[in-house]
């Protein structure tokens, strides 16, 4: 019984801890990507093209067919689309972005970069860029039309300091900008190539006098993004993607990781359940006389089942309480453990998610396994015939 109890404690405990970790990292990843690329992106305009086909060679009769959708890159009339977007339920803010590519030169070094032209006021409402500035300030950026915000890894590679002047080449133009801030999103790809500059400056640099590459939209409820995106796409004739679709690969990785760790750790509970089964089965063999006497006294088969199930329940309850306490302590300890993580997000410690559902799931899985493990020996005990047992006991 002690082994079964220990198994339940460790099984429940590790189940909760692994779920707290994986869901903690997943939530933090979602927070990060929402803070960088927003909840919804309105991108390329599309047109449904129709074509016709002769019913028969030389015939005048033609069949109209809907062909592939034709995409026109970017948002041609961003102001109109922005105005329409504001009417969708749950939309908090939307901002236009012009995206291009170029070469940044500083300190006699060059590096490829991705300039993003933004309307600072609007963009800060659809991203966490303002909070991601680790050196410099958003105010300094807003104050200077030729200011740029540079990713931390890019700044490090080119040894760029706050206030430095950088030269960005794109579309046969070389324009000099002043570094007003260095930001860190934690996403490696973003931090090593992205540069934010003002929309007007970007139009000149990227030779794009009108339109936008995409619109970034923020919602009050991130979980509603897929349905809002679907409605937007249907009514705006632009490709609209939700963050869930955009980041589906990573989200699937996290989900698989969560399920995989849950299954792996559940095996500890399963082993505890097997231990419980074994122990109770041995008790049934050992206590056949006692079971028989209880039956002769007036205990029904259901009463015998209850006695064994009650034993399982006691170990289970103690195991769940112990496991939950163990998990809470371990989760807290992990959250204090320093670890530097960069790549898909930035963190300097283990990220955990305190969620009651992890405890409920762990308890439910333990209850299911221990319940089944207790039921079969209990049923075997209840099926004993008291007369047969007593007769065979030599009476």
């Amino acid at each position, binding site marked *: 019984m002690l082994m079964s109890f220990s198994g339940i404690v460790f099984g429940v405990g590790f189940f909760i801890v692994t779920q707290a970790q994986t869901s903690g990292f997943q939530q933090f990843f979602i927070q990060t990507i929402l803070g960088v690329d927003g909840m919804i992106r309105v991108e390329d305009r599309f047109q449904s093209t129709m074509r016709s086909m002769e019913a028969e060679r030389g015939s005048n009769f033609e069949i109209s067919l809907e062909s592939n959708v034709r995409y026109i890159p970017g948002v041609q009339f961003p102001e109109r689309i922005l105005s329409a977007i504001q009417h969708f339920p749950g939309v908090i803010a939307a901002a236009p972005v012009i995206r291009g590519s170029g070469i940044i030169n500083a300190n006699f070094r060059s590096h490829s970069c991705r300039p993003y032209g933004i309307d600072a006021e609007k963009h800060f409402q659809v991203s966490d860029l303002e909070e991601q500035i680790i050196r410099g300030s958003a105010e300094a950026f807003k104050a200077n039309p030729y200011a740029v915000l540079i990713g931390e890894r890019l700044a490090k590679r080119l040894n760029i300091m706050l206030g430095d002047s950088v030269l960005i080449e794109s579309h046969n133009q070389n324009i000099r900008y002043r570094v007003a801030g260095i930001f860190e999103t934690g996403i490696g790809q973003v931090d090593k190539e992205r540069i934010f500059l003002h929309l007007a400056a970007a139009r000149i640099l990227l030779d794009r006098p009108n339109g936008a590459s995409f619109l970034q939209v923020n919602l009050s409820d991130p979980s509603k993004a897929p349905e809002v995106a679907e409605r937007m796409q249907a009514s705006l004739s632009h490709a609209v993607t939700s963050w869930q679709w955009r980041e589906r690969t990573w989200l699937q990785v996290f989900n698989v990781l969560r399920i995989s760790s849950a299954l792996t750790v559940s095996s500890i509970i399963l082993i505890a359940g097997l231990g419980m089964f074994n122990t109770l089965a041995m008790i049934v063999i050992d206590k056949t*006389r006692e079971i028989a006497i209880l039956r*002769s006294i*007036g205990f*029904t*088969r*259901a009463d015998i089942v209850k006695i064994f199930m009650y034993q399982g329940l006691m170990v289970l309850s103690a195991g769940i309480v112990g496991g939950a306490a163990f998990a809470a302590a371990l989760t807290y300890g992990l959250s204090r453990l320093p670890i530097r993580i960069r790549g898909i997000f930035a963190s300097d410690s283990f990220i955990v998610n305190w969620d009651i559902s992890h405890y409920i799931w762990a308890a439910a899985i333990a209850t299911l396994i221990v319940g089944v493990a207790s039921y079969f020996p209990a049923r075997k005990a209840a099926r004993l015939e008291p007369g047969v047992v007593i007769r065979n*006991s030599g*009476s």
Partner: protein
Amino acid sequence: MPPILEAHNLSRFLGEGPTRVHALKGVSLKVEPGKTYSIVGHSGSGKSTLLYLLGLLDRAESGTLTLAGQATETLSDDARTELRNRFIGFVFQFHFLIKEFSVLDNVMIPMRKSGTLTPRAMKEKGMSLLQSVGLSDKAQRLGNQLSGGEQQRVAIARALANDPHVVLADEPTGNLDKENADRVFELLSSISRERGNAFVMVSHNMELAQRCDIVLPMQDGRFT
């Protein structure tokens, strides 16, 4: 007085295949309140098989059995179990005490199951029963801390816990020395007479059996 137990033409086979034997061959019996019965016979004569049938621990292949006016052969297992709890007390050759429980707790088990008394009343009744078997001073001991004779006396107290109409004893003295055997038998028979319940005992011990009101010798699955 109407019989508390009435068996008519009970028949029972034991074993399967080539080892199948006709253990009881149409046995009939009436057990009246306040009387003591002994069923005697050699091993394999069918006396224990009959006792288990009378105690509703087993079912006969044919025949009828009425307990307290109620036909039992068609009753469900749960209904038969409830009848056992209400009307029958068992004493076996081995005491079958639950060793993890105290003596008093062992005596209180049938009362707890029937659930008709308050915890306090159960305790008082348990102590009273232990007093009647001379073990009230050992009420808090564990079952396995008593001698064999004492354990059997606890089993008697437990059998009487729900004021059964009939006490069925299967070789109750078979595992005891003569002194203890006499004491246990006297206890069972005198308490049964005092309380007015029937007492049916299966025994090899002819000396004790002869002291019952009615002696029923069995041979080859029948009363002789």
